[in-house]
């Protein structure tokens, strides 16, 4: 994958650093959820860290559903030209 000529974004250590920053941000945001009083408009928002859970679930859900959709709609390139 990577070699000495590769750019910064291809090096495993920079990728690891980016992931660690993300993990740290996620942890801080969940901690903040318990410290800060959010304005609540609907009951579902009362779930602790609701937005975090929903964001993760929605994204994984979208991608997994799209993989399922691919089974249904994927055709070879040039399908319409034939």
């Amino acid at each position: 994958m990577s070699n000495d000529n590769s750019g910064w974004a291809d090096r495993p250590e920079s990728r690891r650093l980016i992931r660690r920053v993300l993990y740290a941000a996620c942890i801080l945001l969940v901690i903040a959820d318990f410290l800060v009083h959010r304005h609540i408009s609907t009951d579902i928002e009362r779930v602790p860290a609701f937005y975090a859970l929903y964001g993760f679930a929605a994204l994984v859900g979208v991608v997994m559903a799209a993989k399922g959709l691919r089974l249904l709609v994927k055709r070879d390139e040039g399908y319409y030209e034939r």
Partner: protein
Amino acid sequence: MAPDFHPFLPFAVAALLALATRGWLRSAILLAAPAVGLWHLTGVEVGTATALELMNLELVPYRVDRLSLMFGYLFHIGAFMTVLFSLHLRDTLQHVAGIVYAGSAVGAVFAGDLVTLFVFWEILGLSSAFLVWAARDERSAAAGIRYLVYQVASGVLLMAGLIWHGAATGSLAFVELGLGTPATLLILIAFGIKAGFPLVHNWITDAYPASTPTGTVFLCAFTTKVAVYALARGFPGVEALIYIGAFMACYPIFFAVIENDLRRVLGYSMINQLGFMVCGIGIGTSLALNGAVAHAFNDVFFKGLLFMSMGAVLYVTGRTKASDLGGLYRTMPITATLCVIGAITISAFPLFSAFVSKSMVMTALLEEGRWVVWLAMLFASAGVLEHAGIKIPYFAFFAHDAGLPAKEPPVNMLLAMTLAAVVCVGIGVFPTLLYGILPYDAVYSPYDLTHVLTQLQLLAFAILGVVFLHMTGRYPAEIPAVNLDVEWLWRKALPWTAAQICAALAVLAAALKGGLAALRREAIAHSDQRGLSSALARSWPTGSMVLWVGVFLALMLIAGLLTSVNA
């Protein structure tokens, strides 16, 4: 004060002059048109209207109110940006079609009556078709025709609706129409086609990726935003739009995840963003309407920025498919950075423009107690992050290095992208710049602790979701493929059905022909076997004829003798 003229005028003049000029002079003229127009707009009074009576029709070709003025500003800045992006071209077709197209969008938002709107609506559709055809290849030729069919259908419905509406109400004024009569329903569908409503959305994903690197940037800025303007003017608070908008926001994100052509991904992304606008118009409160039109304003720049960055990649490498690209951040660092700014903006991170507009629609949904739709839109927001926020920059500029030779695009392209990025960040950091020109009276502050915290939580954990899928090998690979959408019905099923009907008719015709031929053969065969050999048709020897004449004469003689004896 500046002399007052119709805002279409500078664009029309520039289009004519562009036909006759070349090089830097044409560039200057094309840039001057939106610049002069914008300078003119800063001087016009809200409430200005020009009435005109033509063939007994009361027309208002030029009307300025806060809604039209906001879109007027938008289209002038957008036109400047897109013209700048296309200045390196030596292509009269694209320059002229582009400036006419931008001008017709301006004309449409200042139209005070439905007839004037219709005229600009048609120029908009026709001029933009030439931007699709400007790619001058087989794909764009076919896609341009399909694109034009949608645009013409929209125009025909608008004309039918406005005639019916005018005849029924006696007024052609373009004001709030509401969804009360079949006539206004026709007009709503006409607007809906150009806004990318469900089932009639595929012209966006079909034609936009088929156009030139620069043509697509023009296309993405105007048609759908004119439609959003028209919906906001004619149908605010129509409840059906809430659900149509929610569907538009959710449906395309699944297709965007698996689509390989990155400009087609952006086409789906565009429908998704339009969903937020249409939904806001459907809610119809001042806050929601402000959110809808503000999001339309911001979309021109962040979606324009993404389309421009993909246009730059296409211009430099000749490719836009995710499976062909990757690793360009090393050879195109400026383009990559600008693309990432667009990606962060469309994902609606705080301090970027989409955050300050989209959150207005989301807040309005909660204020109206529509929490099911709100959950759907929140779901769609996470989807945006995946396909536009991460997929676009990741597969083009990062991912595996495809080893394509590349360099930064021409300087005018970089300047146009920089202008868009400055607008994205500028409005994000100073939202009052945009809020000051919003047409409806609503007080809203995007930067309170709840909004910022919840949005960051949503986005950070959505990114975490992407990382999780990558690390566990569940993230779908980019595969060169075509994904079927509703358009399959008219691109495949309809021609197939027509071909089947034709084939069936051909079989029927062949059967009829065969039957007739058999009858004819039968008649001939029949006459051969019996007719020609029957007693009367047979050829007779002359001798027998003489014999029978002799017999006949002998009988006559005998009969004469007998009668004379008796006498």
